[in-house]
C-alpha cells in the first residue's frame, strides 16, 4: 500500500523515496564479457559490479575514493570503481580481480602474493593486485620507490606493505 505524501515526515525525504529513478540500458565489457544491464544511472560502478553482476571480488573500504580497495582497471589503468558511474565506462574494457587469472591458472602477481604471504586478510588484495598489474604493464622493472608510488593510493592494514613490495618485485622478475 502506497502512503500518501502527507504521511512522510519530511519533504526532502519524500523526494528521496518518490523521485523518479532514471534507468538506462548500458552495455558493459567486464573481463572480456559483454553484458547489457538496466541500471539506475546514479548507481556506482562498484555497486553495479557487486550487486548487479555478482562480481564480489571487488571490495569496498570507504566508498569515498580514499582507500583504493575498490580499484579496477579501465582500459588497463587503475580507477576507483566507487567514484565511477557505469555510463562513464560504457564500451571500455573493465578488468576486475575475477579477470586477472587465466581460468584456474593464477596470474604471476597472484602467484607471488600467495607464495610470499602478501595477502593476509586479503580484503585489499584485489585492488592492489590490479594496480600492480597496471604498473608492470608500463614498467617491467620498477624500482621499489616506483612500486610505492604506484600503490600509494591503496591502503592495507595487515601486512605493513613489505611483503606486497617483495611480491610485486618477484612477479615482475618472473614476467620479464
Amino acid at each position, binding site marked *: *500500500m*502506497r*502512503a500518501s505524501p502527507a*504521511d*512522510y*515526515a*519530511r519533504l526532502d*525525504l519524500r523526494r*528521496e*523515496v518518490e523521485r523518479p529513478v532514471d534507468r538506462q540500458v548500458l552495455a558493459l565489457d567486464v573481463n572480456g564479457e559483454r553484458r547489457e544491464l538496466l541500471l539506475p544511472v546514479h548507481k556506482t560502478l562498484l555497486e553495479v559490479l*557487486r*550487486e548487479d553482476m*555478482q562480481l*564480489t*571480488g571487488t*571490495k*569496498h*573500504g*570507504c*566508498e*569515498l575514493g*580514499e*582507500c583504493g*580497495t575498490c580499484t579496477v582497471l579501465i582500459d588497463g589503468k587503475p580507477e576507483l570503481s566507487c567514484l565511477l558511474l557505469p555510463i562513464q565506462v560504457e564500451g571500455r574494457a573493465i578488468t*576486475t*580481480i*575475477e579477470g*586477472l*587469472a587465466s581460468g584456474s591458472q*593464477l596470474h604471476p602477481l*597472484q602467484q607471488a*602474493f*600467495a*607464495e*610470499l*604471504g602478501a*595477502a*593476509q*586478510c*586479503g*580484503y*585489499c*588484495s584485489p585492488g592492489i*593486485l590490479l594496480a600492480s598489474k597496471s604498473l608492470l604493464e608500463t614498467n617491467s622493472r620498477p624500482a621499489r620507490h616506483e612500486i*610505492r*608510488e604506484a*600503490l*600509494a593510493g*591503496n*591502503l*592495507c*592494514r*595487515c*601486512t*605493513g*606493505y*613489505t*611483503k*606486497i*613490495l617483495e611480491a610485486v618485485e618477484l612477479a615482475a622478475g618472473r614476467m620479464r
Partner: protein
Amino acid sequence: MNQKFNVIGKPLPKVDAASRVTGQAVYADDMLLPRTLHCRILRSPHPHARIVSIDTSAAKRIPGVQAVITGADLPVKFGILPVTQDERALEHEKVRYVGDPIAAVAATDEEIAAAACDAITVEYEVLEPVMSIDAALAAPKDERIQDYGGPNNIHKLVALEFGDVDGGFARADFVREDVFFFQGNTHLPMEQHSAIATYVDGKVTLWSSTQVVHYVHRALAKVLELPMNRVRVIGAAHGGGFGGKTDPFAHEIIVGKLAMITGRPVKCTLTREEVFYAHRGRHPVLMWVRTGVTKDGRITAMHFKSALDGGAYGSYGVASTFYTGALQTVTYDIPAYRFEGCRVFTNKPPCGPKRGHGTPQPRFAIELHLEKIAHDLGIESVELKRRNFVKPMTRTVNWLRVTSCGLEECTERVMTASGYLTRERRPGRGMGFAISSYLSGAGTAIYWNDMPHSEVQIKVDRGGVTAYCGAMDIGQGSDSVLAAVVAEELGLQPKDVRLVTADTDTTPIDLGSYSSRVTFMAGNAALEAARKMRALLVEAVEASGRRFDEVTFEEASVLAEARFGTLTSAGSYTPPNIAGPYKGSGVGPSPAYSYSACVVDLDADRRTGLLHINKVWIAHDVGRAINPLLVEGQVEGSVYMGLGEALMEEQTFRKGLHKWPSMLEYKSPTFLDMPEVATFIVETNDPEGPYGAKEAGQGPLLPVIPAVSAAVFDALGVWVDEVPITPEKIVEALRRKDKGEMPRYGPQGFPDIPYPPTIKVEPPPKELDRAAPAAI
C-alpha cells in the same frame, strides 16, 4: 631443537592464499541470499541525551520497508564481559555517544532503508556531555552516563600492591616520577563490519565478520531469547579485525531479530563512518609512574597509576584497566609493585581491545620512563634495561608465571644488526630502543569455567582428513596453523587437510581470535587430536604386519577405518591454573609470554618537527615459528600499526563528534610512509606451546611506539611523552627547550582519583620459580 619436521618451520603459503588473491573468498557483505532484505540503523546525533519519544509510523509506511524495530523489541542487555552487561542492541531510554543505535529498518534495498531511518522522529532531552577524564571524575552537571560504577562517572577502580613498595622506595638511591599520555586510536580494518542472518526452521543463522563467533553466539541467544541450540554463528571470510570485531555488536543482533520478524535474510553492512563510531579501540590513557632504582640502575620499586577514558560502555574495559598495570613486571624484574587503575565513562564511542589490549600505553610509559632514569644516572639505557630483564622460569611479584623468555637474545639481535651502541651521534638523526612482552592467550576465559578454551576434532575417511575447530581466521593465518599441525602429525602437507572452522553448529569450541591465543591454544588442541588419530592409524597398520612409514596415508586410513569403524579423534586445550591468589589476578596470566626488542632509526627535522623513519629492526621471540612466513607477516604488520599509532593515528572528538571519521582524514601509513623493516625471529622453544610456539600477532607492535619517542630524544634532545608524536608536539618541545624550559611535550599532572584501599598481596614464594613446566 633437534626434532625433524616436514611442515613445521617451513615458509609455506597460507592454505587459503589462492581464494584471497582471486576474489573467491566470500566475505560477509559478498553474501546475497534469495530475498535478502537490507538493514540500516538510525543512530544518535547527540553524545548524551534522554530519549523522550520515538515515532516510527512514517517509516513503516514507506514502500519497500518490511520491518522497523526499536529498543522495545530488543530490551535484553548484553556486553562482552559478564560483569558489564550494559549495552542494548537498540537504546530506547537514553543515548550515551554519537552513534548509539536507536532504531533499525529492514527494506528491499539499502536506499529505502536509509530513507526510512530518516523518517523516524526521535525526541531527545539533551544532557550535558562528559568528554574528558577530568570531566568524568567531577560531579556530573546533569546525570551520570551509566547507572553503575562511581563515584561520578568512574567505571572501575583498582588498587593492588605486591611486596613492600614503601620499603623498596626507601632502599632506592634514586627515584623518578613521570607522566605520560597515550591518545586513543582505532583499528581501521579495511573491511567494514557486516552481518547477514536467516531465520529458517525456527533457527537463527548469522554469518558475520567477527573475531569471536562464540561470544556472538552467546549474545545472540541471550538478547533474542533463544536457546543456544537455536542460534548458529558462522565466521565469514574476514577482512581484518585487530581487536575491532571482538565484541558482539548491535548490528549482529539486529539482523537476527529482523530475520525472525520478516522471515527473510537480512543483511547489515556498516558504513565507514559507522565503523569509526562502533570503535572499541585503543583507550586514551593518562599514566603516572614512579620508580626507585639503585645507583647501578636496579629497580627497587615501582608505582604505576593509569586513568583510562573508556567511552560510553563497559566493553572489555574492566580487563583493559587491569592490563594497563599487569605486564610491566613480565619484562622487568620489579621486586615491589603498586598499581592503581581507573576507568571512566565518557560520552564517546566505547573503547575496548586493539592489538596489544591495554598494554601499549603502559609500555610506552615504562620504556620512556626507564630511558629517562638511565639518562639521569648516566647509564646507557640498553644496559639499564638489561640489568632488570626478567629471567626465564620465574614468577613475577604479581604472580605471573614466566616460562620461555628470549629478551636477551632479541635485544642482542637488534643491537648487532642496527649498530645502535656505536651509532653516529649527530643532531637530527636518532635511534631509539625498546622492548616488550605479550600474552600467548589469556590464561582465564571471559566466562570463568573449567572447560577447555579450544577444541579440535579430526575425521579421517578413505584418505581424506578434515579438521574441525571453532577458531576464526581473521587473516593472521590460524587456519594455516591448524592445517600445519595436523599435517605434521599425520605425515601430510597442509593443503591435504580440509578445514571446517568458526561455525558454532559444526565445530567444537574455540573462544576466538583475541589475546593472541589461537596458535597456542587451538594449536595444542589440534596437536592432541592429531596425535590420537596418528595412534589409531599406526595401530591399524602395525596390526596388518606393516610399518606406518611403509604405507601411504590412504592405505593407513583404509586399514584403520576397517579396524575401528568411523575414524574420529578429539583434542582440547585448557590453560594451566596459574592465576595468583588475589582479586583481579585473572588478567595477566598467560601460558606463555612472547618477547620483542626493537630499534627505530629516524631523521627529525628540527624546523618542521617532521619525522622520517629510516629503518626498523625488530626481533621477536615466538617460541617456535610454525610458519616463519606468517610470523614475519605478523611482525611486519605490527611494526606498521605501531608506527601508525606512534606518528599519526588518533581518535579524537569535538562536541561529541569524531574529528576525522573517514579514511582520508584519519591518517594511517601508506606505502610511502612504511620504512624498511628487518625482522629477526627468535626461537626459545616454549615448554608448553605447540612445538614450542608462542604468539606473534600483537607483541611486536608494543616496542615500536616508545622506540620512536626515544629516537626523537636521541635526535633532538626533547622528550615527547604523548602519543601520537606529531610534528607540532616536537616543535613545541623544541621551543620550550630553546627558552630554557623543560625540553618536553606531555601532560603536566595526574588527577586525584578516589582509589579504594589498596589490596596488599604477598609476592609468590621463591619455590614457585619453576623447575618443571606446569608446576604452580
